[in-house]
């Protein structure tokens, strides 16, 4: 399955990219995706605190991904 990952703020800056496409096996949840992400982007391992949204909704790390899902990694927000 193909998953699109979006990065923002400090993540985007640190990884020097705003998007990434990753192929994952079926039954992959978000925790699994993060492990795969860190293998390809070791710099991401320094980040401990972020939320994840799938197709514009916040989801927990057990969420099972579907082909074509867009996963946004959300650093701690600080609008206002």
């Amino acid at each position, binding site marked *: 399955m193909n998953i699109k990952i979006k990065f923002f703020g*400090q993540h985007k800056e640190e990884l020097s990219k705003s998007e990434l496409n990753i192929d994952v096996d079926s039954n992959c949840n978000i925790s699994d995706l993060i492990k795969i992400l860190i293998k390809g982007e070791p710099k991401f391992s*320094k980040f*401990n605190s972020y939320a994840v949204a799938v197709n*514009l909704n916040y989801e927990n790390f057990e969420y099972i991904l579907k082909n074509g899902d867009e996963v*946004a990694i959300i650093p701690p*927000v*600080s*609008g*206002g």
Partner: protein
Amino acid sequence: MIDITKNEIVLNDYMSFKNEPDSGSLLFFCGTTRDNNLNKKVKYLEYEAFEEMALIKLNEIRKLAISEWNLNKLEIIHRIGIVDISEISLLIIASSPHRNESFRAIEYVIDELKKSVPIWKKEFYLDGDAWIGSHDNPN
């Protein structure tokens, strides 16, 4: 009305209307860029948004606030990009029959916005910069 805009927020643009006839309270909150934070001199701020999702979240917050406090009007405008000292990053306007509802609603919107709306702030100092809100390992 909900908006995320790269343009300067000019208060006068929002002042031309009169309050709703059945409202007794009209409250404007402006969040502006402060020239200091945590004892550092701030030169300017830069905001980034995941706009598509931020608009959805702001709309959810707005609908909840309107129904919770029975508002006649609630507008939320957030600026992104560079925001200079004294300029407005966030404008919230609430109108309600009595004043308490306007105050509670705007405080609620700010609190929720700071919890769940994907917008990020970077502070620029004389000697560097920092993303705000992060508790991750610093560089």
